[in-house]
């Protein structure tokens, strides 16, 4: 645990070592606000709630989260520091977890900086603050699951751009596997159980209830176990391909 935390501290400092981190956070905050106000028509709806705000998060994460995770292992492999890191007395699991937690905290910071919106709806009206809280927790967990996928893609290549694109594509498949457009491609020639299984992996169908302030235990378990699965896969890939 101590080792994991030391790695987390280093990674978090690495994010803020360049202005890119601040640019990223600014883009996230500005974009999540802009989508809410212009596309979500926050004022016209005349409701003191943030459900439209949260409903845009999967879209935003699709582009921004793989950008956060892409460097985590690709850069280590490209610069050779992976050999330095993994010959220190740390396990691969500790290294993977340390990096994941740092990236997750970074996303958490970005998410926390959208709080002025929460304050705003409280000034303008009387929102259901419990629902908003659930929305933030759900959004944070969703970011974690996306990050786990992104880190795994980063462990597969030494090229950050490829890690970014692969991360986006896999996140996209998981996000929208529950959408009719995707499911229709499988209906008819695949058994119903397979179609339902594909649909059950979808983030978006689970996240829709979250935006309304309803978060069921099974959704938490789903996101948590998916995150754990991808992190576990990352450990295996890092071990198998570290010298490649």
């Amino acid at each position, binding site marked *: 645990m101590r*080792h994991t935390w*030391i*790695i987390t501290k*280093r990674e978090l*400092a*690495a994010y803020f*070592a*360049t202005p890119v981190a601040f640019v990223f956070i600014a883009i996230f905050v500005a974009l999540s606000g802009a989508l809410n106000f212009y596309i979500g028509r926050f004022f016209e709806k005349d409701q003191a709630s943030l459900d439209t705000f949260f409903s845009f998060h999967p879209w935003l994460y699709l582009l921004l989260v793989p950008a956060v995770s892409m460097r985590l292992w690709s850069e280590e492999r490209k*610069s*050779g*520091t992976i*050999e*330095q890191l*993994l*010959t*220190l*007395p*740390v*396990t691969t699991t500790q290294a993977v977890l340390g990096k994941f937690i740092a990236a997750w905290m970074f996303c958490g910071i970005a998410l926390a900086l959208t709080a002025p919106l929460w304050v705003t709806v409280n000034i303008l009206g009387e929102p259901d603050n419990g629902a908003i809280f659930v929305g933030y927790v759900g959004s944070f967990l969703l970011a974690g699951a996306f990050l786990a996928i992104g880190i795994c893609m980063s462990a597969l290549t030494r090229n950050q751009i490829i890690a970014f694109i692969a991360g986006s594509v896999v996140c996209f498949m998981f996000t929208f596997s529950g959408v009719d457009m995707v499911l229709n491609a499988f209906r008819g020639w695949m058994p119903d159980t397979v179609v339902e299984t594909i649909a059950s992996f979808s983030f978006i169908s689970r996240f829709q209830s979250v935006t309304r302030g309803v978060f069921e235990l099974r959704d938490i378990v789903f996101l948590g176990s998916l995150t754990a699965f991808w992190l576990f896969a990352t450990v295996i890939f890092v071990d198998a391909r*570290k*010298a490649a």
Partner: protein
Amino acid sequence: MTMVEIDHLSKSFGDFQAVDDISLSVRKGEVLGFLGPNGAGKTTTMRMISGFLAPTSGTARVCGHDVVTNALGVKGVIGYMPEGSPSYDDMTVTAFLRFIAEIRGFTGADRDERIAKVARRLDITDMMERPIDVLSKGYRRRVGLAQSILHDPPVLLLDEPTDGLDPNQKHQVRSLIAEMAAEKAIIISTHILEEVEAVCTRAVIIGRGKVLADGTAKELLTRLPDFTAVSITLPESSAGAAAAYFRNHPSVAAVFETSEGNGRSKLRLTPKEGGIKLEDIAAAARAQNFPVAEIYQDGGNLDDVFRLITTGDAKQGGVRQVAA
């Protein structure tokens, strides 16, 4: 006391056998020079000893820890500098060394003291607050060395520690290795042969993943067929006669003549089996009244040993045989 024991270590990548059944042991106080052409398996072997790569078969034991079953134990007692000493470029030297020190379990004043001590030892105290990516190659290498000795490990693995350094920096790194040699077991990989003569107590030559030779630099030199070759410098006018005479000397296999310029020629007498005695040649030259300006036994050099062992080719550069 045996600190590192390499036990039938092998590694293959697909069809390619990078390391093929290497067994070695290194005792405390020894500086083992790992020699070999590029691609011989030096780095792969080092990576397996350090616990970075898992061996395909065989194992290595470092201070009693088996790298296959207890890689973490091995990593704790080893100081390892990977090839090219990769380090996190965006960190300052201090931040990087702090990170390494904390991972190695040092905190607070103990940590800062250790960092200050290695910084003085490697002469990097002026660079501590600079980001690593702005440092020169020499400083980067010294930062890499600093992280490897921060925890005063009993075993040190250095992959090409002086590669790319200028002669002063090379000297400095070699002195540091020599200083630490007594209380540690040190393995360095290199293809710079002068380094082996300068710091290593023992040299192992590997090629295509196998150990081809193992011994002190002196022992390796005796493997050269020309180890006892004798060179004589004398005026060009008498070179022909001397060459003809020595070609018939019982211990001489062949005579090579080169022009030295300024009216002088150099004869190089290569030995038959059993070698040449310098005294015999000197006595013969005196008896024949050859006007010898210079006579010495050159003994060959490690470059030749290296070529002989790794390619089976030990031609002496720039020497042509006199037409018989």
